[in-house]
C-alpha cells in the first residue's frame, strides 16, 4: 500500500478532517505495529512495581509478551518472554520473585538478567553451540525517566529523555506530589477491553469537550456530594474552569486545567468529608514549604491529562492514573490502568486517593464506563466509514492564540504526528 495522507489539514479554511479508514482497517493496523509501535518508545512499567532484586512482572507490551524484572544486582531488564529454544513462554506467573526462569517445555533455564544458564543434556549440541548467545532476547532499547520504564524496538531511536521532550516537565509535576519525588504504583490493576480502535482512547483521554454530555451523571454525583460545580463564567468555555491544550513535542500533549473537581493532593472538596480537611491542609503546607507557593499551586490546583505518544496516558485529575492500551485488532483494544500515589503516603491519605480514583475512573467508576460506551458507539458507527468518510476535528482552528482543553488542537497534534509516522507525504 502506498503511503498517503489520512488527514485533511487545511489551515486556510481552518478545517481538519480525519479519514475514518484509519480506525477500522486491519491493513493500517499492521502498518501501525511496524511504523508506530516498532519505532516509538513504549511504556513497560514503573520501577516501584519491582521493589527488590529478583522481582518480576510478566505482561504484554504492544502485543509482545515481556518479563519486566530486576536481576540479583538490582538492575532493571525487559526481556522477551520467549524461549530461545522453541519459542514457548518462559515465565507463566504474573508476578513474583525469582533468580531463574525455566521453560517448562525442555527445561532451558535463564537467569533473571536474561542469560541462558542451563540446557538439559547440553552435551548433545555441537562444540560451537554458545550458551552466551542464547540469552533471552530483549527490545533494542530500554530506558527510564524517573522510574517510568519504556522500551523501544528501534535501536536508532533518540534517547528516551529526548523523545519525551516537553512531557518530562509534566511528569515532574506529577512526581512533585511526593515529598521524596517518588510515586509508586498502588496494588490492584484494572485490565479491560474496549471494542474500539486504540486511537479513540488517545482522543478520549484528553478531550474535555465531551465532559458535560458524556459525564453528566458524574457531575450530578459531585453536586450531590456537596461539590459546587458552577456553569462556565467565560464565553467559549464548556467546563466550569479554564483549561488549555498544550503541545509538548514529538506528538505528546497535555491538558492543563484549573481544578474544580478536588485533588487528593491538597485541594479539599466536600466529597472527602470534614474529617479530611486537616490532613489535606498538612499536605498543602508540605507542598508550599518544599516547592514554594507558585509550584505548590501548580501541583495542587491544576489537573492535567497527559498523553505520551503513542499510548501512555497519565491522568493527574481526581486521582492519578497511569493508563496504557494496545490494539487487539482494528476494532478492539486492551486497556491496563493503575493508580499512582506518593511512596510515603499515610494510610488515610492513601485510602482517600483510592476512593477519589473510583469516583471517576475505571470499569466500576462513575465516568469511565460511559467513556467506554462512547468509544464503542463510535466504532459501531464507523461501519459506515466508506460512505461517510471523514471525522470532523476542526474545533478551535478558527481562533488565534490559546487553545482550550475543550478545543481539538491536541487531538490534531496526535493525528498530525501519527500521519507523519505512517509515511504521509509532507
Amino acid at each position, binding site marked *: 500500500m502506498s503511503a498517503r495522507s489520512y488527514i485533511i489539514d487545511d489551515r486556510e479554511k481552518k478545517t481538519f478532517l480525519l479519514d475514518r479508514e484509519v480506525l477500522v482497517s486491519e491493513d493500517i493496523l499492521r502498518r501501525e505495529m511496524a511504523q508506530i509501535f516498532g519505532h516509538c518508545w513504549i511504556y513497560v512499567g514503573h520501577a516501584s512495581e519491582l521493589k527488590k532484586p529478583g522481582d518480576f512482572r510478566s505482561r504484554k507490551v504492544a502485543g509482545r509478551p515481556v518479563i519486566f524484572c530486576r536481576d540479583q544486582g538490582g538492575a532493571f531488564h525487559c526481556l522477551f518472554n520467549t524461549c530461545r529454544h522453541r519459542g514457548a513462554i518462559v515465565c507463566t506467573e504474573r508476578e513474583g520473585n525469582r533468580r531463574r526462569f525455566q521453560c517448562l517445555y525442555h527445561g532451558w533455564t535463564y537467569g533473571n538478567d536474561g542469560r541462558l544458564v542451563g540446557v538439559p543434556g547440553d552435551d548433545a549440541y555441537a562444540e560451537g553451540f554458545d550458551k552466551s548467545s542464547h540469552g533471552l532476547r530483549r527490545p533494542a532499547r530500554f530506558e527510564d525517566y524517573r522510574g517510568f520504564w519504556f522500551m523501544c524496538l528501534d535501536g536508532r531511536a533518540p534517547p528516551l529523555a529526548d523523545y519525551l521532550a516537553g512531557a518530562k516537565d509534566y511528569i515532574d509535576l506529577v512526581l512533585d506530589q511526593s515529598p521524596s519525588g517518588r510515586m509508586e504504583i498502588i496494588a490492584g490493576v*484494572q485490565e479491560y477491553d474496549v471494542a474500539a480502535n486504540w486511537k479513540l482512547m488517545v482522543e478520549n483521554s484528553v478531550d474535555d469537550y465531551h465532559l458535560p454530555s458524556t459525564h453528566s451523571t458524574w457531575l450530578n454525583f459531585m453536586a450531590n456530594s456537596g461539590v459546587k460545580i458552577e456553569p462556565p463564567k467565560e464565553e467559549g468555555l464548556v467546563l466550569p474552569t479554564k483549561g488549555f491544550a498544550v503541545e509538548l513535542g514529538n506528538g505528546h500533549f497535555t491538558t492543563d486545567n484549573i481544578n474544580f473537581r478536588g485533588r487528593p493532593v491538597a485541594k479539599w472538596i466536600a466529597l472527602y468529608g470534614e474529617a479530611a480537611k486537616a490532613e489535606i491542609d498538612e499536605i498543602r503546607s508540605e507542598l508550599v514549604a518544599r516547592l514554594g507557593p507558585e509550584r505548590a499551586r501548580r501541583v495542587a490546583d491544576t489537573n492535567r491529562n497527559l498523553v505520551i505518544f503513542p499510548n501512555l496516558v497519565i491522568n493527574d485529575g481526581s486521582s492519578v492514573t497511569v493508563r496504557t492500551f494496545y490494539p487487539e485488532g482494528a476494532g478492539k483494544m486492551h486497556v491496563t490502568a493503575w493508580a499512582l500515589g506518593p511512596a510515603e503516603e499515610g494510610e488515610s491519605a*492513601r485510602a482517600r486517593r483510592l476512593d477519589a480514583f473510583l469516583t471517576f475512573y475505571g470499569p466500576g467508576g462513575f465516568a469511565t*464506563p460511559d467513556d467506554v460506551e462512547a468509544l464503542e458507539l463510535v466504532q459501531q458507527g464507523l461501519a459506515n466509514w466508506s460512505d461517510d468518510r471523514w471525522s470532523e476535528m476542526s474545533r478551535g482552528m478558527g481562533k488565534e492564540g490559546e487553545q482550550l482543553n475543550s478545543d481539538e488542537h491536541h487531538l490534531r497534534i496526535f493525528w498530525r504526528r501519527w500521519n507523519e509516522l505512517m509515511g504521509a507525504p509532507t
Partner: protein
Amino acid sequence: MTVATPNVVTRAQVEDFLYHEAALLDDWKLKEWEALLTEDATYYVPPNDQPEGDHRHTLFLVADDRERIRQRIIRVLDPNCHAESPRSRTRRMITNVRITGIEGDLVTVAANFVCYRYRRYERIRKYVGAYRYVLKYAGGCFRIKERRVLIDAHELGSLGSVSFIL
C-alpha cells in the same frame, strides 16, 4: 417477645433471600434492592489480580460505602448513564450457597454465581465468580451489611466494565 437468634438460620432461608435479591437486581428494581441494605452497608468488587486485597490500600473496581451505593443507584437509573442506557439485561444463577459463619446477629455467606449480561448488538458477557455476604439477621429477616463480589477472570478483559450492580 423473643429475640431471633441466628442459630436457627437455615441455608434455605439464606437461599431464598439471595434469590430474591438476584431477582430485584435482574429486574432493575434498585430502590427495592436498596431497602435490603443496612445503613452501614458496603459493596466491593476487588480487582481481578488481588481478590483478597483491602480497598484502603488496593485499587478496587468498586469500593462503595452506603452513601456511594446510594449515589451509584441514582447514577445507573439516570438515562444519562450511557453505559447502562439502554439497560443491560442480566440473569444471575446462584448456587453452592453456604453459611460460613454465625457471630451474634451476623451471618456470613458464600455463594457461586454466573451473571449473564446482554446488550444490543453485543457479545454475551459472562461474569463468573463468588459472592461473599455479611448478612444481619433481625426481626426474622436479613439485611445486607457487606456484599463482596469476587470475579474469577484473571482480568476483566472482554467483560469490559462493571457498570451495573454485579
